[in-house]
């Protein structure tokens, strides 16, 4: 039941019917149909409602430039893609499509009341209408506008489809597989270049698919296409990408392509991605993107049934579908005659060709006369009628002298218009190529290029099939030659009497001075010629301003059909030449691109690498709760039984203080700094003096940026005269190495020193607590563990359980501590051995949370928690670390600035609630006096706060202005429940003398 399907013709497969639905109604189409052609075959012209006025809309075009027929295609709740152009949706069995912007139904859309209210909704209505009263914007206007506006609805569920990505390189990337693109690809490929040819349509051929009568090299176009594409497909140096839109042109000839892999399949295999993003680096690009037919601007030009003439021709010749039974053809170019002739042959009665030009071309007139089609010359359109489909058109006649007379009313169910063709210069413009205005043809063509690209065929304003093939061949040869591939090729020969596609009438003349209502320029954004004139009247003259004020050329359409008509109206209205008015920027993407394909593989578990330490599985098996630190998973605590975090952490802390704890410190960054210049390098990078550090000893190092603020910290051990083992924070490892490499390579190339990351070479097992030495002693060989031989901040080499051992005597807990470094493969075995050996000593694995509490009890800072990028060493009490006698180090000069020594800087202190019971909130503000009301005078903030199991009450670290001078004072932390009185103390709460550390 496809009443409008022609008896024969078209490239659809008549043996393969396909069932699909639109707005819940079932229809039948054919394999090879788009949703648009299949609906037309069923006589369905009403496909959507317009964005602003909710006017009934049908199909304007047959291609990706379609501004009206935006539909939602849903396989299920999660697989729902809005804003697909019906002209690009390939139908499959069971496809379910829905119209947008209507409620409750497409035919009875209550939103279309805004059509009657049109005078209230002129251009810029957002800015004008909703200014008063002020509060109403947020409460009333904005929510309602947002509900009414918008194109389609985003799917609710997570996207279950897969999306692929690929990087590719080629010599010549050809975009567009019409006549010019195919000729270019063939010529470049024959020269030996690596060629990628992409085209947005399911089938390659471009406009040639609409020209079955054309003869190329003595055969009809279908046979030529088959042979040419077949030949390209056989060549190893050619990649053919149909269903692939080149959507973005990025610097250095990097282009973004979106390949649609499974949207056209009724049952896609589960592993087949929905789309693939190609990031192509091309040495040369040929833009064979063709041209888009321009609509004409006249009152009522948006009714369903009003369509571009080339689209009607495409539906007939490519899909075998008649767009109506009785057509009137509005000719602004000879291309309309070609459509009229084809349609008449295809069984559509053509009432008349109304030519809007005063003097139609002789060949066109002759062709119409031969076909017996009536031609009305010097016509204009005054009105159209019909609610959901055009019923008739009221013509006018333009008299000599320019006055308009009323003409006849012609009944029709299709009004086909041709306003000439606009070269598709989007990608050239995206690449920052210049544009040239051609006054005679009234369009822009590509001018000077910024990238290594060239346009070919209709994309650079050439007219006709022969010119396209010739130009494409030359472009392909030139592009290949620019890559060093010499070749020759003869352009395919064309024998046909083509009608020209030239012409550019734009807005049709109307009686009176004011622009007519509902003469649409931009279908997608509901912008009329009256809106443009209003904008000009209100003082807008730059096209960039007019675009923003009226929204012409915005949204998914990006002005494909509207751009030049808008420009023409503004130029005419302001009596300027088009280049003076200017041209808005063509933005990427050429057509909308799914978020999924841009995200690609970066989703779920694979969003970022998840880094795990060698001992991760052991911790996981013991029920550890993990936290993310950078990309690492770190064990946060090891709950036992029904313990919550608080209880587990308290137990772990008590074990470390009372016996022995076991901690995985593998994630700490490690950098080996080696070479005769190593000490000098370290002296310049870190604030500390490294010359005085003997091999076998370690020191707490502080690294500043050149602005003098703390960047990172960590223990640095001197392993030999020319070798340092530098540790960094877990999150800082990569950036510290980068900073070091930057200075090494760029600032101090004279130093003989090299840097190697060894973070992952070593598994690091921290054993901390008064029993630590007893625990590891039986396992370690070759190291004297006694306090005299291996003092706090020492390092030694030996073996443990037979594995090579780099043993640090260091402590971040404040207790006697060792850090066992073994090659990563040995990590788990050594860990298990230490755990076993520690059983009799009460060894307890602990996580990062207990580690944080323990270090806070000792007043040890964490860079990035207690510091925030504005903190100097002195601010946190680390001035002692600075090598005072050094001539220079990174940040030294900045530390000498007066502001860095001025009073009032925030300093690290401890805070205890006066009643010793209140756990402060990290980030809470500190004030000097109680009972303040906002705005309060803030003098500091809490950086760390924990319940301290060792002290039996909560503790906090804070940065407070002149904090060290306030020790002993009472300050206040204002909270929603009232001020908390706090006592300022030293930041060291536990073992101020370091007796435990040095034990």
């Amino acid at each position, binding site marked *: 039941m496809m009443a409008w399907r022609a008896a024969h013709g078209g490239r659809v497969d008549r043996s393969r019917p396909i069932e699909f639905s639109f707005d819940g109604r079932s229809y039948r189409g054919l394999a090879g149909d788009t949703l648009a052609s299949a609906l037309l075959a069923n006589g369905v012209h009403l496909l959507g409602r317009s964005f602003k006025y909710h006017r009934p809309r049908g199909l304007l075009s047959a291609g990706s430039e379609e501004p009206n027929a935006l539909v939602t295609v849903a396989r299920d709740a999660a697989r729902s893609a809005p804003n697909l152009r019906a002209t690009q949706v390939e139908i499959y069995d069971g496809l379910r499509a829905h119209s947008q912007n209507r409620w409750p139904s497409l035919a009875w859309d209550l939103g279309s009341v805004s059509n009657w209210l049109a005078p209230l909704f002129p251009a810029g209505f957002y800015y004008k209408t909703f200014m008063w009263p002020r509060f109403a914007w947020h409460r009333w206007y904005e929510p309602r506008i947002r509900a009414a506006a918008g194109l389609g609805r985003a799917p609710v569920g997570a996207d279950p489809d897969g999306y692929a990505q690929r990087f590719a*390189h080629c010599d010549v990337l050809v975009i567009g597989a019409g006549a010019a693109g195919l000729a270019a690809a063939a010529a470049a490929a024959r020269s030996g270049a690596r060629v990628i040819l992409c085209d947005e349509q399911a089938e390659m051929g471009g406009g040639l698919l609409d020209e079955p009568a054309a003869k190329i090299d003595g055969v009809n176009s279908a046979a030529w296409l088959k042979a040419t594409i077949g030949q390209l497909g056989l060549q190893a140096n050619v990649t053919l990408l149909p269903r692939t839109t080149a959507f973005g042109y990025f610097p250095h000839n990097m282009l973004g392509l979106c390949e649609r892999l499974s949207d056209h*399949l009724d049952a896609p295999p589960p592993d*087949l991605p929905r789309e693939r993003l190609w990031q192509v*680096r091309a040495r040369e690009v040929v833009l064979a993107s063709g041209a888009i037919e321009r609509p004409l601007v006249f009152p009522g030009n948006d009714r369903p049934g009003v369509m571009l003439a080339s689209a009607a021709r495409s539906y007939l010749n490519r899909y075998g579908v008649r767009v109506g039974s009785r057509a009137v053809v509005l000719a602004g170019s000879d291309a309309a005659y070609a459509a009229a002739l084809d349609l008449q042959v295809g069984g559509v009665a053509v009432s008349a060709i109304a030519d809007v030009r005063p003097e139609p071309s002789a060949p066109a007139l002759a062709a119409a006369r031969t076909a017996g089609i009536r031609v009305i010359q010097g016509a204009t359109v005054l009105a159209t009628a019909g609610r959901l489909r055009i019923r008739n058109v009221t013509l006018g006649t333009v008299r000599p002298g320019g006055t308009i007379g009323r003409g006849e009313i012609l009944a029709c169910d299709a009004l086909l218009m041709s306003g000439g063709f606009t070269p598709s210069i989007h990608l050239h413009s995206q690449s920052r190529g210049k544009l040239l205005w051609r006054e005679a043809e009234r369009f822009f063509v590509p001018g000077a290029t910024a990238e290594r690209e060239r346009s070919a065929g209709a994309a650079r304003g050439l007219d006709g099939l022969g010119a396209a093939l010739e130009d494409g061949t030359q472009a392909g040869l030139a592009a290949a030659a620019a890559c060093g591939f010499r070749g020759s090729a003869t352009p395919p020969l064309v024998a046909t009497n083509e009608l020209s596609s030239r012409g550019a009438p734009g807005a049709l003349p109307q009686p009176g001075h004011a622009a007519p209502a509902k003469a649409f320029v931009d279908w997608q954004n509901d912008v009329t010629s009256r809106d443009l004139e209003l904008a000009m009247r209100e003082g807008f003259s730059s096209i960039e301003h007019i675009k923003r004020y009226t929204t012409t050329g915005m949204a998914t359409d990006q002005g494909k059909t509207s751009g030049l008509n808008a420009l023409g109206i503004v130029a005419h209205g302001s009596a300027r030449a088009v280049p003076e008015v200017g041209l808005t920027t063509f933005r990427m993407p050429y057509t909308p691109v799914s978020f999924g394909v841009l995200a690609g593989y*970066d989703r779920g578990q694979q969003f*970022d*690498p998840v880094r795990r330490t060698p001992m991760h599985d052991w911790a996981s098996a013991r029920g550890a709760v993990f936290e993310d630190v950078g990309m690492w998973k770190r064990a946060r605590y090891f709950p036992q039984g029904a313990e919550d975090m608080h209880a587990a952490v308290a137990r772990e802390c008590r074990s470390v203080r009372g016996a022995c704890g076991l901690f995985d410190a593998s994630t700490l960054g490690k950098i*080996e700094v080696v070479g005769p210049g190593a000490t000098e390098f370290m002296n310049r990078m870190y604030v500390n003096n490294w010359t005085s550090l003997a091999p076998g000893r370690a020191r707490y190092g502080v690294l500043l940026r050149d602005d003098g603020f703390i960047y990172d910290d960590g223990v640095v051990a001197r392993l030999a005269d020319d070798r340092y083992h530098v540790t960094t924070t877990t999150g800082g490892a990569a950036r510290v190495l980068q900073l070091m490499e930057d200075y090494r390579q760029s600032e101090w190339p004279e130093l003989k020193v*090299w840097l190697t990351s060894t973070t992952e070479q070593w598994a690091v097992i921290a054993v901390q607590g008064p029993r630590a030495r007893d625990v590891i002693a039986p396992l370690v060989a070759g190291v004297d563990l006694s306090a005299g031989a291996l003092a706090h901040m020492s390092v030694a080499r030996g073996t443990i359980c037979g594995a090579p051992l780099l043993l640090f005597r260091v402590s971040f807990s404040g207790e006697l501590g060792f850090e066992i470094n073994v090659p990563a493969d040995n990590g788990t075995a050594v860990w298990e051995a230490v755990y076993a050996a520690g059983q009799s000593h009460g060894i307890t694995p602990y996580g990062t949370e207990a580690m944080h509490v323990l270090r806070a009890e000792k007043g040890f800072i964490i860079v990035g928690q207690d510091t925030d990028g504005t903190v100097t060493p002195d601010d946190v009490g680390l001035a002692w670390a600075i090598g005072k006698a050094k001539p220079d180090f990174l940040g030294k000069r900045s530390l000498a600035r007066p502001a860095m020594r001025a009073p009032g800087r925030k300093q690290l202190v401890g805070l205890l609630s006066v009643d010793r019971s209140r756990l402060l909130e990290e980030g809470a503000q500190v004030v000097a006096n109680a009972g303040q009301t906002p705005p309060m005078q803030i003098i500091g903030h809490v950086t760390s706060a924990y319940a301290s199991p060792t002290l039996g009450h909560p503790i906090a670290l804070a940065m407070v202005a002149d904090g060290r001078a306030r020790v002993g004072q009472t300050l206040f932390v204002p909270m929603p429940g009232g001020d908390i009185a706090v006592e300022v103390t030293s930041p060291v709460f536990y073992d101020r003398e370091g007796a435990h550390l040095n034990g």
Partner: protein
Amino acid sequence: MADATAWLHPLPGATRLSFCGDEAAQDAAAAALGLPSSAMPCRAVSVGGRASLWLGPEERLLLAPLNERAQLLASLEAGLAGHAHSLVDISQRQLAFELRGPNASLLLNAQCPLDLALEAFPVDMCTRTVYAKSEIVLWRTAADRFHVEVWRSFSDYVLTLLHAVARELSARP
């Protein structure tokens, strides 16, 4: 892999040394290893099981069988006496696998931006590059074979991704 157009298999543990030094030191190291001296950027030289991969003007990744570690370190230290250099054992910092088959470069190009055509990335070419968000060292050992080095904690991420890409390549509409 499903359609047998690429195979991935892990390589056994190896001795890996990061070696840095000027040209003279590089020559001395090559002599100590029994490898031909080569300063050609982004190229690997290999003899038997030993290889030296050019990663920077002064930086090489030295690869050798696991059991040659001690011998290698000894002969390098002897041969490099008097040359300023840095030699750091990174045997366990990373692990390696081999990707082999006609689709190997396609698998890599899913998330590696380099041109892996044989003319652009010939046999013996090597470089530090990325696979998605992970750093890798890529070394083409034959027309259809790549040696890939990846830091151990990034290996899950890289291998999971490679398997996903392989599944997707073997899916046919």
